Protein backbone atom coordinates (compact mmCIF):
# COMPACT_ATOMS: atom_id res chain seq x y z
CA UNK A 1 0.00 0.00 0.00
CA UNK A 2 1.45 3.39 -0.97
CA UNK A 3 1.23 6.29 1.40
CA UNK A 4 1.09 9.97 0.50
CA UNK A 5 3.47 12.56 1.92
CA UNK A 6 0.69 14.34 3.78
CA UNK A 7 -0.46 11.08 5.37
CA UNK A 8 3.13 10.31 6.38
CA UNK A 9 3.40 13.66 8.10
CA UNK A 10 0.18 13.04 10.00
CA UNK A 11 1.37 9.60 11.05
CA UNK A 12 4.74 10.89 12.23
CA UNK A 13 3.03 13.65 14.17
CA UNK A 14 0.68 11.14 15.85
CA UNK A 15 3.62 8.88 16.73
CA UNK A 16 5.44 11.83 18.24
CA UNK A 17 2.44 12.80 20.36
CA UNK A 18 1.84 9.21 21.49
CA UNK A 19 5.49 8.68 22.44
CA UNK A 20 5.67 11.95 24.43
CA UNK A 21 2.39 11.16 26.21
CA UNK A 22 3.62 7.70 27.19
CA UNK A 23 6.92 9.04 28.47
CA UNK A 24 5.06 11.58 30.58
CA UNK A 25 2.52 9.08 31.93
CA UNK A 26 5.02 6.36 32.79
CA UNK A 27 7.81 8.77 33.77
CA UNK A 28 10.20 7.07 31.38
CA UNK A 29 13.60 8.58 30.57
CA UNK A 30 13.47 11.07 27.72
CA UNK A 31 16.08 8.97 25.89
CA UNK A 32 13.35 6.39 25.20
CA UNK A 33 11.42 8.85 23.02
CA UNK A 34 13.05 7.74 19.76
CA UNK A 35 12.57 4.03 20.54
CA UNK A 36 8.91 4.50 21.44
CA UNK A 37 8.24 6.60 18.37
CA UNK A 38 9.79 3.93 16.19
CA UNK A 39 7.76 1.20 17.90
CA UNK A 40 4.53 3.12 17.28
CA UNK A 41 5.41 3.68 13.63
CA UNK A 42 6.40 0.05 13.02
CA UNK A 43 3.16 -1.19 14.56
CA UNK A 44 1.14 1.27 12.51
CA UNK A 45 2.87 0.40 9.21
CA UNK A 46 2.15 -3.29 9.85
CA UNK A 47 -1.55 -2.47 10.32
CA UNK A 48 -1.84 0.10 7.55
CA UNK A 49 -3.32 -2.38 5.01
CA UNK A 50 -6.40 -2.51 7.26
CA UNK A 51 -6.96 1.26 6.94
CA UNK A 52 -10.25 2.05 5.21
CA UNK A 53 -10.51 5.75 4.18
CA UNK A 54 -14.30 5.46 4.09
CA UNK A 55 -14.44 4.72 7.82
CA UNK A 56 -12.34 7.62 9.02
CA UNK A 57 -9.25 9.73 8.56
CA UNK A 58 -5.70 8.43 8.67
CA UNK A 59 -5.11 10.50 11.79
CA UNK A 60 -7.97 8.83 13.64
CA UNK A 61 -6.80 5.40 12.51
CA UNK A 62 -3.25 6.11 13.64
CA UNK A 63 -4.52 7.47 16.96
CA UNK A 64 -6.47 4.30 17.74
CA UNK A 65 -3.66 1.95 16.71
CA UNK A 66 -1.13 3.90 18.75
CA UNK A 67 -3.41 4.13 21.78
CA UNK A 68 -3.73 0.35 21.75
CA UNK A 69 0.02 -0.05 21.36
CA UNK A 70 0.61 2.41 24.19
CA UNK A 71 -1.62 0.35 26.48
CA UNK A 72 0.38 -2.79 25.74
CA UNK A 73 3.68 -0.99 26.28
CA UNK A 74 2.39 0.44 29.58
CA UNK A 75 1.40 -3.05 30.77
CA UNK A 76 4.83 -4.36 29.89
CA UNK A 77 6.60 -1.50 31.68
CA UNK A 78 4.44 -1.97 34.79
CA UNK A 79 5.03 -5.72 34.77
CA UNK A 80 8.78 -5.19 34.49
CA UNK A 81 8.67 -2.71 37.35
CA UNK A 82 6.77 -5.18 39.51
CA UNK A 83 9.40 -7.81 38.72
CA UNK A 84 12.57 -5.81 38.89
CA UNK A 85 11.66 -2.66 40.82
CA UNK A 86 10.99 0.86 39.62
CA UNK A 87 14.63 1.76 39.21
CA UNK A 88 16.77 -0.80 37.40
CA UNK A 89 20.05 -1.53 39.14
CA UNK A 90 23.04 -3.13 37.51
CA UNK A 91 24.46 -6.29 39.05
CA UNK A 92 27.88 -5.05 37.97
CA UNK A 93 27.54 -1.85 40.01
CA UNK A 94 30.18 -1.65 42.75
CA UNK A 95 28.85 -1.37 46.28
CA UNK A 96 30.03 1.54 48.39
CA UNK A 97 32.68 0.68 51.03
CA UNK A 98 32.83 -2.89 49.83
CA UNK A 99 36.39 -3.25 48.57
CA UNK A 100 35.32 -3.78 44.96
CA UNK A 101 32.43 -6.18 45.60
CA UNK A 102 29.56 -5.78 43.17
CA UNK A 103 25.83 -5.97 43.78
CA UNK A 104 25.83 -9.30 41.93
CA UNK A 105 28.25 -10.77 44.50
CA UNK A 106 25.54 -10.42 47.15
CA UNK A 107 22.91 -12.36 45.22
CA UNK A 108 22.91 -16.10 45.85
CA UNK A 109 22.36 -18.31 42.85
CA UNK A 110 19.09 -19.56 44.41
CA UNK A 111 17.83 -15.96 44.42
CA UNK A 112 18.94 -15.24 40.88
CA UNK A 113 16.88 -14.74 37.76
CA UNK A 114 17.53 -18.29 36.52
CA UNK A 115 16.06 -19.76 39.71
CA UNK A 116 13.17 -17.29 39.59
CA UNK A 117 12.33 -18.46 36.07
CA UNK A 118 12.30 -22.11 37.12
CA UNK A 119 15.80 -23.19 36.18
CA UNK A 120 17.52 -25.54 38.63
CA UNK A 121 20.63 -24.08 40.19
CA UNK A 122 21.24 -26.81 42.77
CA UNK A 123 23.48 -29.42 41.15
CA UNK A 124 22.31 -32.16 43.53
CA UNK A 125 18.65 -31.41 42.76
CA UNK A 126 19.50 -31.47 39.06
CA UNK A 127 21.11 -34.92 39.35
CA UNK A 128 18.17 -36.21 41.39
CA UNK A 129 15.74 -34.84 38.83
CA UNK A 130 17.65 -36.54 36.04
CA UNK A 131 17.53 -39.85 37.91
CA UNK A 132 13.78 -39.35 38.45
CA UNK A 133 13.32 -38.71 34.74
CA UNK A 134 15.27 -41.85 33.84
CA UNK A 135 13.26 -43.89 36.36
CA UNK A 136 10.08 -42.45 34.88
CA UNK A 137 11.18 -43.24 31.34
CA UNK A 138 11.90 -46.77 32.49
CA UNK A 139 8.22 -47.27 33.28
CA UNK A 140 7.22 -46.33 29.74
CA UNK A 141 6.85 -48.53 26.74
CA UNK A 142 10.08 -48.26 24.63
CA UNK A 143 8.10 -46.70 21.77
CA UNK A 144 6.75 -44.04 24.14
CA UNK A 145 10.30 -43.38 25.39
CA UNK A 146 11.38 -42.87 21.78
CA UNK A 147 8.44 -40.49 21.29
CA UNK A 148 9.57 -38.45 24.33
CA UNK A 149 13.09 -38.26 22.91
CA UNK A 150 11.72 -37.16 19.54
CA UNK A 151 9.54 -34.50 21.17
CA UNK A 152 12.60 -33.00 22.87
CA UNK A 153 13.72 -31.97 19.38
CA UNK A 154 10.57 -31.37 17.39
CA UNK A 155 6.81 -30.91 17.54
CA UNK A 156 3.87 -33.24 17.20
CA UNK A 157 2.85 -31.57 13.95
CA UNK A 158 6.24 -32.28 12.41
CA UNK A 159 6.26 -35.86 13.67
CA UNK A 160 2.82 -36.38 12.16
CA UNK A 161 4.02 -34.80 8.93
CA UNK A 162 7.04 -37.09 8.96
CA UNK A 163 4.85 -40.19 9.08
CA UNK A 164 5.22 -41.05 12.79
CA UNK A 165 1.45 -41.40 13.18
CA UNK A 166 -1.72 -39.34 13.13
CA UNK A 167 -1.76 -36.13 15.15
CA UNK A 168 -4.70 -37.26 17.26
CA UNK A 169 -3.04 -40.56 18.04
CA UNK A 170 0.24 -38.82 18.96
CA UNK A 171 -1.65 -36.42 21.26
CA UNK A 172 -3.40 -39.38 22.90
CA UNK A 173 -0.05 -41.06 23.50
CA UNK A 174 1.40 -37.86 24.95
CA UNK A 175 -1.55 -37.57 27.33
CA UNK A 176 -0.99 -41.15 28.43
CA UNK A 177 2.75 -40.57 28.85
CA UNK A 178 2.12 -37.48 30.97
CA UNK A 179 -0.17 -39.42 33.29
CA UNK A 180 2.35 -42.27 33.56
CA UNK A 181 5.12 -39.83 34.44
CA UNK A 182 2.84 -38.03 36.89
CA UNK A 183 2.25 -41.35 38.64
CA UNK A 184 5.97 -41.82 39.19
CA UNK A 185 6.24 -38.33 40.65
CA UNK A 186 7.23 -36.26 37.62
CA UNK A 187 5.14 -33.20 36.97
CA UNK A 188 5.11 -31.34 33.67
CA UNK A 189 7.69 -28.57 33.54
Amino acid at each position, binding site marked *: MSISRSHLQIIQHEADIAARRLIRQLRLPYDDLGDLRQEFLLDLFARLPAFDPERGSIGAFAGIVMANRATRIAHKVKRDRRLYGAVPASLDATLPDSDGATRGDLVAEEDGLAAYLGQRVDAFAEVEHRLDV*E*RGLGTLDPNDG*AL*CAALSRTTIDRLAGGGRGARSSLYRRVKDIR*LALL*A*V*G*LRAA
Partner: protein
Amino acid sequence: MISAITKLPSVRLRINETDLCGWIGQAAPGDVLEYYRGFLAMDTFSHGTRLPERDRAELTRLARRAWWAGEQKLIHLVQRRHGPDDYSYLAIARLKPRSCPASLSSLLLAEVA
Protein backbone atom coordinates in the same frame (compact mmCIF):
# COMPACT_ATOMS: atom_id res chain seq x y z
CA MET B 1 -42.86 -64.33 44.26
CA ILE B 2 -39.89 -62.06 44.78
CA SER B 3 -40.61 -60.02 47.85
CA ALA B 4 -37.31 -58.33 48.59
CA ILE B 5 -34.98 -57.04 45.97
CA THR B 6 -31.84 -55.48 47.33
CA LYS B 7 -31.70 -51.95 46.10
CA LEU B 8 -28.29 -51.07 44.72
CA PRO B 9 -26.75 -48.13 46.52
CA SER B 10 -26.11 -45.10 44.37
CA VAL B 11 -22.52 -44.48 43.45
CA ARG B 12 -20.56 -41.54 42.23
CA LEU B 13 -17.12 -41.01 40.82
CA ARG B 14 -14.91 -39.17 43.32
CA ILE B 15 -11.61 -38.89 41.50
CA ASN B 16 -10.46 -39.20 37.94
CA GLU B 17 -7.41 -40.72 36.29
CA THR B 18 -5.33 -37.56 36.60
CA ASP B 19 -6.12 -37.25 40.32
CA LEU B 20 -5.06 -40.85 40.85
CA CYS B 21 -1.77 -40.34 39.01
CA GLY B 22 -1.07 -37.16 40.98
CA TRP B 23 -1.77 -38.97 44.25
CA ILE B 24 0.47 -41.91 43.34
CA GLY B 25 3.25 -39.53 42.36
CA GLN B 26 3.35 -37.77 45.72
CA ALA B 27 2.14 -40.50 48.11
CA ALA B 28 4.44 -41.83 50.81
CA PRO B 29 4.70 -45.61 51.22
CA GLY B 30 1.71 -46.87 53.18
CA ASP B 31 -0.62 -44.01 52.22
CA VAL B 32 -4.08 -45.28 51.31
CA LEU B 33 -6.54 -43.86 48.80
CA GLU B 34 -10.06 -45.09 48.19
CA TYR B 35 -10.20 -44.44 44.48
CA TYR B 36 -13.68 -45.84 43.99
CA ARG B 37 -16.59 -47.17 46.01
CA GLY B 38 -19.18 -49.33 44.29
CA PHE B 39 -18.89 -52.46 42.22
CA LEU B 40 -16.19 -51.85 39.67
CA ALA B 41 -16.88 -54.84 37.45
CA MET B 42 -20.52 -53.86 37.09
CA ASP B 43 -20.11 -50.09 37.06
CA THR B 44 -17.64 -50.17 34.19
CA PHE B 45 -19.92 -52.44 32.18
CA SER B 46 -21.99 -50.36 29.80
CA HIS B 47 -25.34 -52.06 30.45
CA GLY B 48 -25.05 -52.59 34.17
CA THR B 49 -23.67 -49.26 35.23
CA ARG B 50 -25.21 -46.92 37.80
CA LEU B 51 -23.13 -44.04 36.47
CA PRO B 52 -23.75 -41.59 33.63
CA GLU B 53 -21.94 -42.59 30.43
CA ARG B 54 -19.30 -39.90 30.82
CA ASP B 55 -18.44 -41.01 34.35
CA ARG B 56 -18.45 -44.64 33.29
CA ALA B 57 -15.84 -43.93 30.63
CA GLU B 58 -13.74 -42.04 33.18
CA LEU B 59 -14.12 -44.89 35.68
CA THR B 60 -12.86 -47.33 33.05
CA ARG B 61 -9.78 -45.17 32.52
CA LEU B 62 -9.31 -44.82 36.27
CA ALA B 63 -9.51 -48.58 36.80
CA ARG B 64 -7.08 -49.28 33.95
CA ARG B 65 -4.64 -46.73 35.34
CA ALA B 66 -4.87 -48.25 38.82
CA TRP B 67 -4.18 -51.68 37.33
CA TRP B 68 -1.21 -50.26 35.38
CA ALA B 69 0.20 -48.66 38.53
CA GLY B 70 -0.17 -51.97 40.33
CA GLU B 71 1.73 -53.71 37.52
CA GLN B 72 4.45 -51.05 37.76
CA LYS B 73 4.79 -51.87 41.50
CA LEU B 74 3.81 -48.31 42.41
CA ILE B 75 0.75 -49.33 44.47
CA HIS B 76 -0.93 -52.34 46.01
CA LEU B 77 -4.52 -52.83 44.92
CA VAL B 78 -6.89 -53.91 47.67
CA GLN B 79 -10.65 -54.05 47.99
CA ARG B 80 -12.83 -54.02 51.11
CA ARG B 81 -16.37 -55.37 51.09
CA HIS B 82 -19.07 -53.32 52.83
CA GLY B 83 -22.14 -55.17 51.63
CA PRO B 84 -23.75 -56.61 48.51
CA ASP B 85 -22.24 -54.97 45.41
CA ASP B 86 -20.59 -52.40 47.62
CA TYR B 87 -16.81 -52.40 47.79
CA SER B 88 -14.13 -49.89 48.53
CA TYR B 89 -11.32 -50.05 46.01
CA LEU B 90 -8.12 -49.01 47.72
CA ALA B 91 -4.71 -48.07 46.41
CA ILE B 92 -1.86 -48.41 48.91
CA ALA B 93 1.31 -46.60 47.96
CA ARG B 94 4.49 -48.67 47.75
CA LEU B 95 8.13 -47.72 47.85
CA LYS B 96 9.03 -46.29 44.47
CA PRO B 97 11.12 -48.76 42.44
CA ARG B 98 14.76 -47.74 42.55
CA SER B 99 15.80 -49.48 39.35
CA CYS B 100 16.62 -47.26 36.42
CA PRO B 101 16.25 -49.33 33.27
CA ALA B 102 16.11 -46.43 30.80
CA SER B 103 18.96 -44.08 30.06
CA LEU B 104 17.95 -40.60 28.97
CA SER B 105 21.16 -40.17 26.99
CA SER B 106 20.74 -43.45 25.11
CA LEU B 107 17.14 -42.55 24.22
CA LEU B 108 18.20 -39.15 22.90
CA LEU B 109 21.13 -40.66 21.01
CA ALA B 110 18.89 -43.32 19.49
CA GLU B 111 16.51 -40.61 18.33
CA VAL B 112 19.31 -38.59 16.70
CA ALA B 113 20.65 -41.73 15.00
